[in-house]
């Protein structure tokens, strides 16, 4: 059953060295309140699993500029020069992953799968060091599940069982990251009573969610 906690409590839970999957796409749908609390709390030595490294002053970019991230599995870093500089200085270790592959690898962990076979990346540097498996004469890359200790996500509404809805394109990676945290913490705009969400409109069932944090007002 979910518990409502403060962003500070959430940040304190994320121990240095943790693997954290963070929702959002170019900072839209990012759990900014929890991220700010983590910056405050100086959580460090984090491994981050994200679609994009966002901007220096928005989304997970704030963790980057505060040097809290030592390794990342990420798909897009084009909006954040700091992570590029840190990579070139070997201060951060980066695994670049095609976005669709990243989502399936994260989902696989949440779904109890060991990995997936994808054609994406065949014949490119993405295939380096990976097993190629042929199914009915077609080659695929074997891409293993990506585990995460914590998933930090942003949803729109939650009920007190942790059922979540999202808003527009702020949904993006959040429902997938939510499945995949050993502990999942959802930052939400609003917490409503049980029964206020239509069972048809729930996107992330509460079974995936452990803690709720109320987003600070913009």
């Amino acid at each position, binding site marked *: 059953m979910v518990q409502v906690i403060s962003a500070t409590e959430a940040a304190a839970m994320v121990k240095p060295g943790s693997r954290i999957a963070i929702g959002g796409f170019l900072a839209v749908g990012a759990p900014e309140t929890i991220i700010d609390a983590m910056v405050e709390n100086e959580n460090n030595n984090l491994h981050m699993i994200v679609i994009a490294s966002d901007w220096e002053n928005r989304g997970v970019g704030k963790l980057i500029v505060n040097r809290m991230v030592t390794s990342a599995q990420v798909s897009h870093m084009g909006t954040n020069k700091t992570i590029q500089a840190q990579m070139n200085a070997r201060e951060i270790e980066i695994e670049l992953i095609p976005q669709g592959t990243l989502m399936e690898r994260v989902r696989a*962990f949440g779904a*109890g799968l060991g990995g997936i076979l994808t054609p994406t990346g065949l014949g490119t540097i993405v295939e380096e060091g990976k097993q190629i498996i042929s199914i009915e004469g077609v080659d695929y890359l074997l891409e293993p599940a990506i585990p995460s200790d914590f998933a930090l996500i942003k949803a729109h509404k939650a009920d007190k069982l942790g059922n979540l809805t999202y808003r527009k394109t702020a949904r993006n990676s959040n429902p997938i990251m939510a499945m995949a945290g050993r502990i999942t913490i959802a930052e939400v705009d609003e917490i409503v009573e049980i029964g206020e969400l239509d069972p048809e409109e729930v996107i992330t*069932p509460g079974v995936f969610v452990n803690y709720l944090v109320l987003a600070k007002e913009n």
Partner: protein
Amino acid sequence: MALDKRAMIGARIAKEFEDGDYVNLGIGLPTEAANHIPEGIQVIFQSENGLLGAGPKPPEGQEDEDMINAGGGYITCIPGASFFDSATSFAIIRGGHIDATVLGALQVDQNGNLANWLIPGKMVPGMGGAMDLVTGAKKVIVAMEHCDKYGNAKILKQCSLPLTAKGKVNLIITDMAVIEVLPDGLYLREIAEELTIDDVVNATEADLIIPERVITF
């Protein structure tokens, strides 16, 4: 099975659940547990066809054709329920998000192996969701009569029927006993009132480890 035996097993299963647990009950005897959830404890039942928050059977005449459980019976849903597709449902199951599953068994053995889906030469119903449930749930509880209708042991040294999953059973609850499955064997934890430890041992083919403390239930 006699009604009082079903109720006894159901009540004992229900004690395994903690407040807020997500639980999947197999068809038949395991569903009896839903009738014995203690007050103050909320357990959320999953139906693997795509529902969290399964509620009781609706009153006659109020059935909804689109509301069934995994056994095909009409159900309702509780406030806070959610619907999802079957892939998500099994992502929940296989991904370790279900706290406990309770299933019936044809045989279970001292290595925690379970056989509950196929008797070669008889009807082949298919494994349905059972293999995923036993593989993925955090706690796998087998609920069954201790012996079959001919009085033969169902808790064996080694299953002879095709397995549902290998080494995944955590707890066996029968009309005679509660047995915990640990890596080094089967621990007899509880016996039914009016039974002796020897009664249970004699009705069990598997080796039972008898701790100092065995309580009644």
